[in-house]
Structure formats: structure tokens, C-alpha cells
């Protein structure tokens, strides 16, 4: 009887039109909605900037642009190490996967530390959410700290998520698909930075 029921249910269940597990589809849907969130703040920032007559260009090549470029390289490298972790997970090499996830978390932490160091340096110079020591539009601080703060929150959340998944994967509670799904989020954090770096840093470079 139960076999008959199981057979009936299996016949009723339709394969995913996307050919992926539901958790991966959920992650893609989250990423699409989060992309819209970042799009909204970047559009808002851009309109504020275009509408301002006294915009400030505070970022000197050294240290600000060099620091931001190093942060970009670190984040790109962390995406590569995350991919190495996914490759290892698919190959069934749990130890190597965990090692690469650890490197990814370390790079994420270094990115966050460099970012916070830059923030505190700017605070020392007199910058704030509504403060501009150069005397120009105070919207710069709101835009800069708002956008980079939102991104930094994502980086820190990503490091925590990677740690949780790594622990679950190590204990056998989670599998390689969880690692792959979490890697999508980490790559998305990298993707967003591809827009933050030119729009927020390079377009505000003192030239």
C-alpha cells in the first residue's frame, strides 16, 4: 500500500524546470532581490551626486585608491578560493574543501579589516554620515558610508555563513550542495563590489 502511495506521489512530482535543488533556486531568488537592493542604493547615490553642485573628490591615489584596489584583489581572490572549495567538495575531498573555505573566510576577514581601517582613518579626518571636512556636499558621507556599510555587512554575514556551513559540512550534517549554494552568496558579494569600486571609489578619486 505504502509503495503504491510512494509511486503515485513520485508520478505527481514534477522535476524542477531549472534543474537545480530548491535551496539553490532560493539562493538565486535572494541574490536577485539583493541585487535590486544594491541597485536602489547605487541609483540613489548616483542621482544625489549628479544633483549636487559641490561634490567632493576625497580619494587620493595613495592610500585610498591603492587600498581599494588591494581590497578588490582580495575579494576576487576569495571568490577563487571559494571555487576551489566547491571543486574539492564535488570531488569528495572534505579536508581540502574545509581548508579552502577557511582561506576564503580569512580573506573576507582581511577585506573587512582593511575596510574598517579606512573608515576609521576617514573618521579621524572629520568625515561622517553627515559631515564633510572639505566643505562640500554632506551627501557624500551618507552615500559612501551607507553603500560601503551595506556591502561590509554582506561580507561579514558571508564569513559567518561560511563558518556555519563549514562546521555543518565537517560534522556531516550538511553536504556539498550546501557548500555550493553558500558559494553563490559569496560570489554575489564579489559581484556587488565590481560596481561599488568604480562608482564609489574611482569616480570620487582626486585627479
Amino acid at each position, binding site marked *: 500500500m505504502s509503495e503504491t502511495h510512494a509511486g503515485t506521489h513520485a508520478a505527481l512530482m514534477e522535476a524542477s524546470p531549472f534543474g537545480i*535543488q530548491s535551496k539553490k*533556486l532560493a539562493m538565486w531568488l535572494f541574490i*536577485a532581490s539583493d541585487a*535590486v537592493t544594491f541597485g536602489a542604493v547605487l*541609483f540613489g547615490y548616483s542621482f544625489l551626486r549628479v544633483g549636487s553642485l559641490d561634490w567632493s573628490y576625497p580619494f587620493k591615489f595613495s592610500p585610498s585608491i591603492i587600498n581599494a584596489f588591494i581590497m578588490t584583489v582580495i575579494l576576487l581572490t576569495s*571568490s*577563487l578560493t571559494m571555487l576551489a572549495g566547491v571543486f574539492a567538495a564535488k570531488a569528495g575531498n572534505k579536508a581540502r574543501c574545509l581548508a579552502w573555505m577557511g582561506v576564503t573566510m580569512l580573506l573576507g576577514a582581511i577585506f573587512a579589516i582593511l575596510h574598517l581601517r579606512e573608515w576609521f582613518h576617514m573618521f579621524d579626518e572629520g568625515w561622517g554620515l553627515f559631515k564633510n571636512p572639505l566643505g562640500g556636499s554632506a551627501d557624500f558621507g551618507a552615500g559612501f558610508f551607507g553603500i560601503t556599510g551595506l556591502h561590509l555587512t554582506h561580507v561579514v554575514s558571508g564569513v559567518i555563513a561560511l563558518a556555519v556551513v563549514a562546521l555543518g559540512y565537517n560534522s556531516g550534517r550538511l553536504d556539498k550542495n550546501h557548500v555550493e549554494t553558500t558559494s553563490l552568496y559569496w560570489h554575489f558579494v564579489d559581484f556587488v563590489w565590481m560596481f561599488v569600486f568604480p562608482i564609489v571609489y574611482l569616480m570620487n*578619486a582626486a585627479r
Partner: protein
Amino acid sequence: MASEREPGFKFYVGIWIVMICIAGLEVILTYQHLPGRTFVGALLILAFVEGGIAIMYFMHMKYESPNLFWTLVPITIFVLFMLDHIWPDALRLARMNMFR
């Protein structure tokens, strides 16, 4: 799961190098004293190229079912496009110049 067409890890190392080069090119362009529109346009094009590479290769969208791409990407771009074009109204409302 991504399909079996997925390339090996060395391919992704190449993608990583390309993306670092694009970021470096963006920095170089910043100090070329290009006209404003050219500069902004060039940086945005490079950012979209870099972002596209990240989605298609790092996030494996290229190796997933086309259904996933056509379900997610066009609608997300449409929403972003609408945001970009509706937002000026929000600024206009903030300044209470509703009919200008």
C-alpha cells in the same frame, strides 16, 4: 547542479586574472583625464563586463539550465531599469516640485 560541461579549475584561474586586469584597467583609466562622460561610460561598461563574468563563470550561470537565466536575469534588469527611471520622481517629490 551545474552540468558536466563545466571547465576545470585552471580555467577559473584565467578568469580571476582577467578580472584583476579589468580592475587595474579601471584604475589606469581614472588617471587618464578623460572627459567626464567618456570616463563614467568606460568605467560602467568595464563594471558590467566584470559583473557579467562573475555571474556567468564564478556563479556558474553559464553552466546552469537556460531556464534559470531567462527567468531571473531579464526580470532583474527590468526592475533595475524601472528603479533608475522612477527614482528621479522620488527626488522631485522630496523637493515638493511636483509639476516641474
